């Protein structure tokens, strides 16, 4: 059994004529001890996907499909069970640690909160555990007495990670954990996440717009566009040789220093992602696609096999030889 298995997940905001599909049929699987990266632009549905995993979406969101965490469907769980799963089964590290921490409470109290709520640890036990958690993420235990404003951005992100680890979850979902951090601090945080995943045999789902960072950190990579996975496979292969034209565009947007092809030649992708409320017919990517043909405007594309352990939702996959 996989640690996490998502089957045909659909998330729709609103209803009737105003319904906006944010996630449109996502299938993903994550094993314990492995790292899955989910890449995509703003508005592609990647953060909705992350929040759906623990049913953290607003009431107006309608969820369909299955989210199996250790075989148990999160979407049909009773409220009490869901509360137990949040933090202890799976926890989320959100982007922007400055906004996710309470500015007027001591750091140690914030880390201890899920422990006290879920584990019924005594305050003394919780205090000891907080110290150990802070040291595990590379901060001195004495920081527990401090407030968030006394920490740098990187240190706050470490606190967020300590908090996520507090109840020893099996799955960590990290939504843009290093966005807005400097390169050196980003490297420190990524190494920390990698080490923790390996030591505790956790499953990691990391969500980012930065394909290069995901490819460097994760084992597998899924590329999302307009609420769907359009490409999935081993991280290095997807990054270096994407099968879907969107994956290719996204990966070539990251310059390779030293590569003469990207010197004085920044590459992007013209146009903007489609409005989820008014998706184009056919393949949702066709209006921006450099290799679109007439059929692309009519036929929606399902994921298909694109080599060993790889899938891509493009009409050209499997057609051409090279």
């Amino acid at each position, binding site marked *: 059994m996989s640690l996490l298995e998502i089957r045909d997940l659909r998330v729709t905001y609103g209803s009737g004529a105003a319904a906006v599909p944010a996630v449109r049929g996502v299938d993903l699987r994550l094993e314990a001890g492995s790292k899955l990266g989910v890449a995509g*632009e*703003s508005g592609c549905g990647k953060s909705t996907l992350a929040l759906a995993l623990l049913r953290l979406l607003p009431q107006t969101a309608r969820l369909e499909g299955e989210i199996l965490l250790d075989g148990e469907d999160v979407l049909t769980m009773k409220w009490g069970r869901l509360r137990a799963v949040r933090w202890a089964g799976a926890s989320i590290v959100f982007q922007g640690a400055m906004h996710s921490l309470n500015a007027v409470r001591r750091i140690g109290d914030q880390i201890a909160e899920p422990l006290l709520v879920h584990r019924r640890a005594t305050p003394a036990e919780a205090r000891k555990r907080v110290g150990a958690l802070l040291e595990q993420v590379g901060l001195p235990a004495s920081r527990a007495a401090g407030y968030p404003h006394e920490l740098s951005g990187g240190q706050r992100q470490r606190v967020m990670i300590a908090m996520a680890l507090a109840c020893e979850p099996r799955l960590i979902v990290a939504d843009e954990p290093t966005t807005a951090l400097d390169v050196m601090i980003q490297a420190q945080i990524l190494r920390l996440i990698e080490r923790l995943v390996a030591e505790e045999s956790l499953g990691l789902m990391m969500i980012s717009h930065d394909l290069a960072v995901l490819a460097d950190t994760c084992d597998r990579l899924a590329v999302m566009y307009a609420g769907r996975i359009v490409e999935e496979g081993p991280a290095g292969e997807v990054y270096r040789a994407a099968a879907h034209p969107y994956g290719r565009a996204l990966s070539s*947007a990251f310059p390779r*220093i030293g590569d003469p092809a*990207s010197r004085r030649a920044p*590459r*992007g992708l013209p146009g903007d992602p489609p409005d989820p409320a008014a998706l184009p017919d056919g393949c949702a990517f066709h209006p921006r696609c450099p290799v679109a043909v007439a059929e692309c405007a009519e036929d929606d594309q399902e994921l298909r096999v694109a080599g060993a352990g790889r899938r891509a939702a493009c009409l050209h996959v499997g057609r051409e030889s090279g």
Partner: protein
Amino acid sequence: MTSGPLLAASGVHVTFPGRRGAPPARAVDGVDLEIGAGEIVALVGESGCGKTTLARTLLGLVRPGAGAVSFAGEPLAYTSRALKAYRRRAQLVLQDPSGSLNPRHTVYEAVAEGLRIHRAHRSGAEERAAVAEALARAGLRPPERFFLRYPHELSGGQRQRVVIAGALVLEPELIVADEPVASLDASVRGEILALLLRLRDELGLSALVVTHDLGLAWNIADRVAVMYLGRVVETGPVESVLTAPRHPYTRALLSVLPESETPPVVLAGEPPDPARIPSGCRFHARCHVLASGEAAQVADRCRTEPLPVLRAGGGERGVACHWAVAGDGG
């Protein structure tokens, strides 16, 4: 075109008073930097290294405590009249386009604002033509379609183009862009950088791009200056600095990029407080080359002997490191 640099900073120091008796913060602690006409220079460094303070000083927004800034050979005068005239020639593009646009102003008003401040005498038709041209140059075509839009109706990339159009409308000679693509999606990032390159090619515009992103420097800059704790520690043409870095700090920054082929050197901790700049080489406490013993023959100098200010201008390379400089001789 003059033969000297368009913009030159020499020996610039900017100090902010310390809070509650703390020593003053030396945000910019001796920088020589030049930008030639039509040149794109990337000023690279981590948060807190002083790069934004330096950029603001170059624009005349901060008056240096010591040293001088000159534009087209003339030292900046800090009277409000002179500064206003200077700001027509040197424009700032801020990092977060959502924060730098007034949500209640249309695109037209946002772009025309600079014109109105600087030459109120323009007729309505002239103003319309200038706004349309700036929007078109920034890649918003047809420009008339954008005139009456509000920022919330635009995508992040379009907003950044409006901000750039607002700078271009005054036909400046230099733009200073502070993290111009940091808040944008990867696919949009390339488009905005390509725009900056095109503006240089079409208008001969010079640019100083302040960023923590070395890939950006590789994408568009001619020269790069790497800043650490208030000083430029390495400078030179992009090709040579980024493919053969000499300063241990530049090496470490490049080594932790996802694409890097060299083993990552993850520096521990964070840059020290600019109020407590270490003696000797300011990087020595975090230097992996010194810690590994590789720099043993210069170790004493690293700890005690300060390095001279680099001149970041022209085509030559410079590195402020005892170990790298000693390596040249031997």
